[in-house]
């Protein structure tokens, strides 16, 4: 479904990604783990077309989408929940969700999807009319995911969705992610919480200072000694 | 500059900026005069050369221009500046440096008070204000006058004061004195007030561009009294409609006067500049050039003091009248009152009404 080939990204003189390549197959949950600053966000941004590539290709649904404008990429069903949520603070919760459905025109279906989102996140329903910017961190995270779901993605990129969430919510979010996946959405998940990520993922890639250093079955990696040591806290 | 074959004269005018149309006509007229003089053999065997600097109608730029002309170009005299604020900015400098300066058009009284090197060829605000007041009171038999003026423009403020003083001393009353700021477009508030005061005449001492806009609102409010203005109205006929009828203004000359000097000037100016009829500022610039040339000729040299001494004795008949200087180096000459009328072709034009002598 998605294939990334030899990505190289620079920020000015800083070489952030070195020949990053990986694949996401239809229906999978793939996780990308790595320490702070290893380039996870950069990878997602280059897939979504937000940062320019120095070299390399992104192929999605058999089409080369390298260099295509971000808003056009969304049309193909490749949607990202950005790091740090990036809620539209000046829009209400409801309007934020509407923006998620921006590319769609099927009014009745959209209405149904609101209900789906509100069942997943009852908290959001309560705060429907509240300005996005005044939500608490966790509420914003729910909104960010809900907003992305509103576009009916085929491939969802999630950038650290559990950051700053209460434990009960972390569990919930991971459950929701699995649920979304069961409903037919392929998922590329970037996580600090490697343990959880590896628990729900099919396969994983490990990113170290801009390079993919390890890849494999998620369950295997979870038991790999060096991975345990570096990312699982013991 | 010894041995050289030219006499350099500095000209400081607003070639760009808000009043550039005035500056350009004035400059063209000065150059026309110099060309005529040079064609007739020049002055003392030398050719006159105008070095024109743009003052942008801004006092500080005028100062820069003055320093450039006097220190790098080493001109023998200055013609300029056009607006009073610019002339005021350099008058003291010219006096201190003992450089002769003749403003063509600055009507503010204080300009020539800077000292004995500073002259002008136009009459001053107080005279013009009085002329209009006299006309309003004696010819139009007005008893109550209203004034609408631009408070941020010294020209407008000066005329207002002098008009009011004279009008009062002639037995009239100024029943409303309203002001606005340069660039204002809405005068309805002031006019509502003026209308309520029921004046016989309304004096609007500003430039034609603003005046034409004011006139529309005046007539729009149903105020039908005669409107009065001064030399800033020059060209009003090209910029206003029917609302300008029933109005009068004082000016330096009338291009339709059948005076031979006027006709010669108008003809050659038109020939040189695409048939444009010269306005009053052009006439003054033209006269300014001739006054200076005559003084240099009379002095026989380009020494500043000698030119100044010759200038004081000036007595020549030019386009804007017979010019002699009073003790404050202001010209003693007459003003004309023009009326705005509809011409035979249906277009607005001016009609000579009367001459007022000092």
């Amino acid at each position, binding site marked *: 479904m998605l294939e990334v080939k030899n990505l190289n990204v620079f920020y000015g003189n800083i070489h952030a990604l070195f020949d990053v390549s990986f694949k996401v197959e239809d229906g999978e949950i793939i996780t990308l783990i790595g320490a702070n600053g290893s380039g996870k966000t950069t990878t997602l941004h280059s897939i979504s077309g937000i940062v320019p590539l120095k070299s390399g290709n992104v192929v999605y649904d058999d089409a080369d989408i390298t260099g295509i404008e971000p808003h056009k990429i969304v049309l193909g069903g490749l949607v990202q929940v950005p790091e740090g949520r990036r809620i539209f603070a000046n829009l209400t919760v409801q309007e934020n969700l509407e923006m998620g459905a921006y590319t769609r025109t099927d009014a009745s279906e959209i209405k149904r999807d609101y209900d789906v989102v509100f069942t997943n996140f009852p908290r959001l329903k309560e705060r429907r009319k509240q300005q996005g910017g005044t939500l608490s961190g966790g509420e914003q995270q729910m909104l960010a995911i809900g907003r992305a779901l509103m576009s009916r993605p085929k491939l969802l990129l999630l950038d650290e969705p559990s950051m700053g969430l209460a434990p009960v919510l972390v569990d919930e979010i991971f459950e929701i992610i699995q649920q979304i996946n069961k409903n037919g959405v392929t998922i590329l998940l970037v996580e600090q919480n490697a343990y959880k990520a590896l628990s729900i993922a099919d396969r994983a890639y490990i990113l170290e200072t801009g390079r993919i250093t390890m890849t494999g079955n998620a369950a295997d990696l979870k038991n790999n000694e060096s991975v345990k040591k570096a990312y699982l806290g013991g | 500059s010894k041995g050289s074959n030219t006499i350099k004269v500095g000209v400081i005018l607003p*070639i*760009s*900026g808000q009043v*550039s149309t005035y500056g350009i006509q004035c400059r063209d007229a000065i150059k026309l005069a110099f060309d005529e003089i040079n064609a007739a053999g020049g002055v003392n065997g030398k050719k006159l050369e105008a070095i024109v*600097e*743009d003052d*942008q109608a*801004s*006092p*500080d*730029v005028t*100062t*820069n*221009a003055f*320093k*450039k002309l*006097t*220190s*790098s170009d080493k001109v023998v005299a200055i013609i300029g500046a056009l607006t*009073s*604020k610019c002339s*005021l*900015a350099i*008058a*003291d*400098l010219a006096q*201190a*440096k003992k450089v002769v300066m003749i403003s063509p058009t600055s009507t*503010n009284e*204080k300009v020539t008070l*800077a000292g004995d090197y500073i002259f002008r060829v136009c009459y001053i605000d107080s005279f013009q204000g009085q002329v209009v007041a006299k006309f309003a009171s004696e010819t139009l038999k007005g008893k109550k006058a209203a004034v609408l003026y*631009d*408070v*941020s*423009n*010294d020209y*407008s*403020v*000066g005329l207002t004061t002098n008009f009011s003083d004279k009008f009062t001393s002639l037995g009239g009353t100024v029943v409303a004195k309203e002001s606005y*700021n*340069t660039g204002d477009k809405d005068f309805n508030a002031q006019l509502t007030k003026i209308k309520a005061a029921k004046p016989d005449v309304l004096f609007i001492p500003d430039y034609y561009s603003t005046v034409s806009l004011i006139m529309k609102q005046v007539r729009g409010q149903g105020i039908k009294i005669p409107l009065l203005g001064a030399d800033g109205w020059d060209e009003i006929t090209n910029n206003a409609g029917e609302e300008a009828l029933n109005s009068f203004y004082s000016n330096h000359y009338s291009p339709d006067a059948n005076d031979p000097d006027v006709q010669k000037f108008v003809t050659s100016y038109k020939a040189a500049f695409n048939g444009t009829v010269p306005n009053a500022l052009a006439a003054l610039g033209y006269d300014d050039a001739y006054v200076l040339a005559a003084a240099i000729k009379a002095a026989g040299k380009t020494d500043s003091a000698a030119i100044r001494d010759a200038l004081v004795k000036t007595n020549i008949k030019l386009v804007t009248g017979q010019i002699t200087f009073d003790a404050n180096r202001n010209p003693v000459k007459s003003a004309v009152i023009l009326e705005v009328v509809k011409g035979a072709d249906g277009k607005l034009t001016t009609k000579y009404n009367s001459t007022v002598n000092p």
Partner: protein
Amino acid sequence: MTTKLRNFIILAGLSVIALVAVSLLIYVGVIDEYTAQILTLAGVNVIVALSLNLITGFTGQLALGHAGFMAIGAYAAAICVMHFHLPLFASLILGAFVTAIFGFFIGFPTLKLSGDYLAIVTLGFGEIIRVIMVNLKDLTGGAAGLKGIPSFTKDLTLQPTLSFTWVIAAMILVIVVMHNLLHSSVGRAIISIREDEIAANSMGINVFYYKMLSFTLSAFIAGLGGGLYATFFGYLNPTMFNFLKSCDFVIIVVLGGMGSITGTVISGFVLTYLQEFLRIMQDYRLVIYPFILLLIMLFRPQGLMGSHEFRLTSVFGPRAKRTAGGKEGV
């Protein structure tokens, strides 16, 4: 200590050379009066632009009415000399003080406002000042302006030299004061307001106090610049201090680089000269100047210097690393 001494000597030496040597050149006529005029005018522009940089570039509060402060300083100084017959030096300082007082009273209600609101209020204030100058006829001469303001000297031959010396000496003084203040804890407090007001407040910095300090000091310096302008030109008119004049200073600051003292100095001289040079283009100048500005903004939006400083001392020795405040070098 030795690098401190070395740096001091280099800087002091260069300042003295700039001041004394150029003054001498003007005096003997190698630099003619016209060039001296432009250099002096540039000095005045730099002073006012520096004051604007203090509040806008360093404190992060956009102000669009600095011509108004300049006007107050100019008129106040001129009135002190002409009406109250005070000595010139005292008048200049007094003019700056009067401006600072105005700055204080305008800052008080407005510095609580955020960015663009402050911009519009200062812009409005600049316009009001003009209206007031026009209406206070007895003191300011109204629309006709104030004429015959005494210059730095009555001696005509010395005038360009002394004007230059006074103005540039004042400029150097302003630079030293601003540099020393900004490279200290006070300066860091001011800069932290620009970076993040809420964080600054939580770090124990009295945000409003330092905004006021910066704004009042800025007004003081602009007033000083205005006073010098008045004595240097000898003539004042309210129209000389319009919105476009305020824009000129904003442009100098942005072109030089917000938060760079040396940037302001360089761009102040360059732009003053450019404006004078473009005068020969007549009306086209009115289009060319903003066009150049536009190009600069598009191709070098951070200005000539960014927020860096051009360090002469580093030309002569090892480069110091950039920091926002404190002693040079980390």
